[in-house]
């Protein structure tokens, strides 16, 4: 049974509508307005790509390919031109994302430990609430560890999400050491036989070495309990993030000896999250989940095929 059946393709499309309007919609409109590939056309195309946060490299790559295709494949009308451009964009999407299978909820190991990291304000806590809900719906027992001991009221926020998802949570009582919360959580999961452990961490800017050291420590203490943990290390990236997103992924990856996936949040806004293409490309780091709203079921399993289809479907 595919988990995707449960989440509803319509919602995904709805959430991505803005993305579609901005990238594909704009390309279509441009083609309809101009109809031929000339310098001005390419310049406007470049603007569309850059404005989607795809980055200069990807924009240049796309434009070069489209120029080449236009020479070899002579297009007859606007419809063909449109298809030509769309297929090149689609190819870049596929090239960077198609090799990743969507997240498998049939866990091979329990407790299955997930650490969630990211810079401040990207939506870690909210994503964890939704993620817990996803696991719960997939029939797994979940324990959340609240290792954000820094931000005021982070505990309370996560507690509310845990209640909404109807899962258990472990919080720091007297200690302010995030590693000890992580340790307690994993220990408790082992003794209770919990299926999934999700560790929330405080938001931190990736260029602050002492905060990155703290993350390493969290990982180390978890490994004292379960040597092969964490089974997943997700970085949460805000879809509005610009080119700095790559630095974020690189630095968190460096600190934690690799990341296993991206949770891309806030896709229900006008931002396109184009930066993940660059991250996919440079780091081979797949998007695992996407956040498309503020409700508890607004975290979708990322599936490159349905994502691309949702992006292109008319």
């Amino acid at each position, binding site marked *: 049974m595919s988990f995707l059946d449960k989440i509803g393709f319509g919602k995904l499309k709805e959430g991505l509508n803005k993305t579609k309007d901005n990238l594909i919609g704009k390309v279509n409109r441009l083609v309809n307005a101009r109809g031929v590939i000339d310098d001005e056309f390419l310049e406007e195309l470049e603007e569309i790509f850059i404005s989607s946060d795809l*980055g200069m490299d990807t924009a240049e790559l796309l434009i070069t390919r489209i120029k080449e295709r236009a020479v070899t494949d002579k297009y007859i009308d606007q419809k063909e031109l449109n298809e030509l451009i769309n297929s090149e964009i689609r190819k870049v999407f596929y090239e960077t994302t198609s090799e990743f299978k969507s997240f498998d909820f049939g866990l091979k190991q329990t407790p299955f430990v997930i650490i969630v990291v990211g810079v401040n304000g990207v939506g870690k806590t909210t994503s964890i609430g939704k993620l817990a809900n996803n696991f719960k719906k997939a029939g797994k027992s979940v324990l959340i560890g609240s290792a954000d001991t820094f931000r005021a009221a982070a505990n309370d926020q996560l507690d509310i999400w845990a209640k909404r998802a109807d899962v258990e949570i472990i919080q720091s009582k007297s200690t302010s050491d995030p590693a000890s919360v992580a340790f307690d959580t994993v220990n408790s999961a082992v003794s209770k036989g919990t299926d999934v452990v999700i560790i929330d961490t405080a938001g931190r800017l990736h260029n602050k070495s002492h905060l990155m050291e703290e993350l390493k420590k969290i990982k180390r203490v978890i490994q004292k309990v379960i040597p092969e943990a964490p089974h997943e290390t997700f970085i949460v990236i805000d879809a509005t993030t610009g080119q700095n997103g790559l630095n974020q992924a690189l630095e968190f990856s460096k600190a934690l000896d690799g990341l296993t996936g991206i949770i891309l949040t806030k896709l229900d806004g006008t931002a396109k999250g184009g930066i993940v293409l660059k991250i996919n490309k440079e780091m081979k780091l797949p998007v695992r989940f996407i956040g498309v709203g503020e409700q508890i079921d607004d975290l979708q399993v990322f599936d490159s095929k349905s994502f691309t289809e949702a992006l292109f479907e008319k």
Partner: protein
Amino acid sequence: MLDDLTNKLETVLKKIRGQGKITDTNIDESLREIRRVLFDADVNYKVVTKFINDVKEKSIGLNVLNSITPGQLIVKVINDELIKLMGAERSGIKFSDRIPSVILMVGLQGSGKTTFSAKLAKHLKSKGRNPLLAACDVYRPAAIEQLRILGKQISIPVYTDDNEKNPVKISNAAIQYARENARDTLIVDTAGRLAIDEEMMNEVAALKKSLNPEEILFVVDAMTGQDAVNTAKAFHDKLDFDGVVLTKLDGDTRGGAALSIKAVVNVPIKFSGIGEKLDAIEEFHPDRMASRILGKGDIVSFVEKAQNEFDLSESGKLEEKLRKNKFDYNDFLAYLAQIKKMGSLSGLLSMIPGAGKMLKNQEVDDKVLVKIESVIQSMTKKERENPNLLNGTRRRRIADGSGNSIQQVNRVIKQFEDMQKMMRQFSKDKGRGIMKKMKLPANFMNQLK
């Protein structure tokens, strides 16, 4: 801050300088590279296009082709254009005679409104205002609790009503509370919202209508990409906000959003958030930021921050030093020692001319500070008081003594000299203005005691 952009521009400009003579082609090539740098920095597409055109036009208008120092001319043109782009003037918060003056904070989810509201409250308190915070984010779980805790940390009252779900009602009750409790400034924290969420945008518009705030601040994450402009424009169309707050600027983002937003909505950037601590707030200075982008450092911010944090006797000494044009390694050391007391280290260090570059490949943490200190501490008393004494032999001794390479020692010396040069300039050019500015808050703090 914006260090990467600075470094890249420096590389590009070095190329122009290296070629000695500017031709039509190498201008174009350089501009293309600058264009790429700006895109990588997340500056909006249209803003970049206009910027490049302006620079090109101005460069040619200046007849740089025949100039003896074309590189410097181009730097000047870029510098001027950047300042123009970010707004030549700095501007603070507007207050009225009304009690309380109201500041409304708005922005997307996760931009840092709640944290910044607390920082702003603390900042305004230090300037003699008497602020009250109002928790009007009724949606995000525990947002009210978060502000309550922050308020406690900075000893500033927070108006909350856990049972009320209407932000208009909460904030109006907060106004009443402020009047009754002699609070002259009300900072209203609101929920994060998407610009395309009509219902939520109407809610914040209703807040504006009801509160008639003296100041609406749009809070934006410095890491935001191309969408920054769309969001800022949508919020501005709806709310006509008065200022922008750029948060998380202590990261390694190039912060092109700052340039873009200013250029597109033409509203000044008033503050930046530069660290996790609640005093990590800075007034935004477009001119300094432009100069920073071009690698000149930002000594004025540094001095101001230092002056706020130093005890008054230290600050008096600093004034004296500036006046007498005497700034030696002991002073430098004293600054570094004080830095530890002040919020974000990386933010502060990037204000020291050349330090950003020096720190590029190193960890920006206390270790760096310790390194600089160790170099100075290995100097003799005489050397510290007479920086000119530091010849090759002495530098070698200092290097060995402090366990650093000679290059590292040279870098510290270079950095010190840059700083000294800046100091000298201030006492010459704008000394008076700066003195006045520095004296004002000092006197003010005296009154508070």
